[in-house]
């Protein structure tokens, strides 16, 4: 059988010998290698391998930097948005609160609240509402609404975060309507028609509360006050009490759903409310706050930090609900346990904001007995 003729290799595939001897030397695999020694080819190969390795490392580093930059930018953007919403009280507050669990009522609860809401509507529609303006101790211009009653007794209402003085105050139809008390509904700083760049969850607002009481006494004569705070409003009242800022004509405080730690509340709920992890978002927001000119840090907003102080001699009624998914019962219980002054606790079973409807008699009985309102 004839030997199969081998295909003649292309010139760069032929073996090469530096001394011109056929069959010896490095196999030349590309045209560029033509005319080079074996050592030179080997060295070049090693150089190329090093370059490839370096290029790979640089590429990986670039990818890591880009991913970090994009991720970091995303974290920054999200953090900035929530910072502006929850501390600078931007126009996004209503939209953000739509994601917060626990603020919506069930259909049953809504229908049960309706009579109280209608009574409050009747009260507001049948009374003249004055608008007051006052300059706080730090120069911030603050605004409030006043339904002037016939008695020298005023219920001062501190609404929760995201609400201003126009929000419902359901006990008002009883306290203001039947009992003739004045109802003063405050716009917290940076909320409603009040000025201010930041909302501090009670830390700065406590002095504002004291300033309002002083203002009311100076304009309308010495009054007796019942302070009713919800959420951050309750924290404001308790901060003021613990820091000794309230005058002696405050007869009582109703603290509805206060919480010991804003940080803890945020960390517990941020996933279920906004589908975000506490780290890095809560940490980033707190860091941002600490380097801002807000005048307070996250630590300052923790009510539990001042509960060890001796409160003033003002009785406090704590309200909470086991069904509250916004400010869960354990947060209020923590404050209740830590509060060392005269206190009582009324617990409902419904959603946030339904305690008064459920326990109206107990609450009003306590108010009458302890404060005379």
């Amino acid at each position, binding site marked *: 059988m004839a030997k199969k003729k081998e295909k003649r290799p292309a010139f760069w595939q032929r073996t090469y010998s530096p001394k011109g001897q056929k069959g010896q030397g490095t196999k030349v695999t590309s045209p560029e290698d033509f005319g080079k020694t074996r050592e030179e080819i080997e060295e070049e190969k090693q150089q190329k391998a090093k370059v490839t390795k370096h290029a790979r490392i640089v590429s990986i580093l670039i990818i890591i930097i880009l991913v970090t930059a994009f991720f970091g930018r995303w974290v920054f953007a999200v953090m900035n948005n929530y910072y502006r919403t929850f501390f600078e009280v931007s*126009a*996004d507050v209503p*939209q953000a609160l739509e994601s917060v669990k626990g603020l919506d009522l069930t259909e049953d609860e809504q229908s049960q609240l*309706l009579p109280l*809401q*209608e009574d409050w*509507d*009747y009260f*507001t*529609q*049948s*009374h*003249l509402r*004055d*608008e007051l303006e006052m300059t706080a101790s730090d120069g911030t211009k603050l605004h409030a609404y006043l339904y002037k009653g016939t008695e020298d007794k005023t219920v001062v209402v501190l609404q929760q975060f995201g609400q201003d003085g126009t929000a419902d105050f359901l006990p008002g139809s009883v306290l203001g309507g039947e009992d003739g008390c004045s109802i003063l509904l405050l716009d917290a700083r940076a909320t409603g028609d009040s000025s201010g760049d930041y909302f501090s969850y009670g830390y700065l607002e406590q002095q504002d509360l004291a300033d309002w009481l002083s203002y009311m006494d100076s304009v309308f004569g010495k009054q007796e006050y019942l302070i009713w705070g919800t959420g951050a409003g309750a924290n404001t009242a308790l901060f003021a009490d613990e820091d000794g800022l309230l005058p002696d004509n405050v007869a009582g405080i109703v603290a509805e759903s206060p919480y010991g730690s804003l940080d803890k509340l945020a960390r517990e709920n941020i996933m279920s409310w906004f589908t975000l992890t506490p780290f890095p978002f809560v940490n980033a927001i707190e860091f941002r706050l600490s380097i801002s000119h807000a005048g307070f840090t996250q630590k300052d907003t923790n009510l539990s930090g001042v509960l060890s102080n001796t409160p003033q001699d003002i009785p406090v009624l704590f309200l909470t609900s086991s069904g509250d998914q916004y400010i869960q019962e354990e947060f209020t219980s923590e404050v209740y346990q830590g509060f060392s002054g005269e206190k009582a606790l009324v617990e409902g079973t419904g959603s946030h904001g339904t305690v008064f409807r459920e326990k109206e008699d107990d609450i009003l009985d306590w108010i009458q007995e302890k404060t005379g309102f």
Partner: protein
Amino acid sequence: MKKNVSPYERALYIVLVPVVLLIIFLNSGVLQRALPAASVNGQSYTVAAYDFYYFDYYNSFLEENEDKLDELGYDPDQSAGRQDYDGSMTWRDYFLQKGEEELAETAYFYDLSQKAGYQFSDTELLPIQKQLEKNQQAMDQYGLKEKNFYVSYYGRGMTKAIYEKQLERKVKAQAYKQYLVDHYQLTDEEWQGWQSSHQEEDYKAVNLKVITLEAGTDRETGKVGERQVEALKEKLTSLQQRYEDGESFASLQQAFSTDALGDESGDIENATRESLPEVLSSWCIDGQENCKAGDYYSVVEEDTGTAYFAVLTSFGGSGLKKQASMEIGKEKVEEALKEALEGDYAVNRNKAGMTLAAN
């Protein structure tokens, strides 16, 4: 080895890139701000300026007829150009016509005011600020940025600056038109003609200060019911009590009045029966012989859910001549406007610009 780009890819890039750039350009609003859409009395209006009048009328139409669009036969979700208005024109044609009437009227009265060197008061210019505030509230409510708001509601190419300029022209034009009506000088002939056909009795006039209060609405139905009227009566009683206790009318008016009647201070000069609600005219016009300056009166108009607290400051002269001046003045101004719209102030459309307008 350099990779060859296939001819198909090359063709795609050559066609696609310019098309994309053109689409971006057309959507950027640059053309709308540069191209003229119409001219009136020699003054050219860009597409964006033209759109102000078109959408101003269109948005008002939607707001005023929200509940009866079906009845009128207009569906805002469909293209206006595809819906028939009355057999002879589409809804788009109708809106264009109305927008152009507004544009021409504004141009006419604005030019008149400039020729006369008329100085506008702060009160006359107040509607500008109020409208801008209303826009800002809408932006906050719907979470729209300023640029997006004006483009969404007034067409591609609209900017706040263009909007404000046209709004100012419109407000000034309306204010000057009202000035012409209010200051019309009757001729003797006109006055005699009016007197012969109107009774003096119908035109007794008074000067009043009025505070108006509005009833709240039911939370569920959004309507004013019996309970809301009862609440309003209580509120009115409180207001009267505070006045009797010595609080000044001015401070009460500033704090509580909705200013539905009278000027910003609640003053109404030379109010005749026609210009007052019946609940008030029956007291101070029909019952004039029982009233004296300084008397006050509280009344609730249950049909409308409006309460009035009025103080009679003085009796006005006969309102007959003033009424005549206003009515005849209004007629004459409208006649002059009609003549101008058929003459120098007819709207001349620019074909190229109109393809981009009102979209």
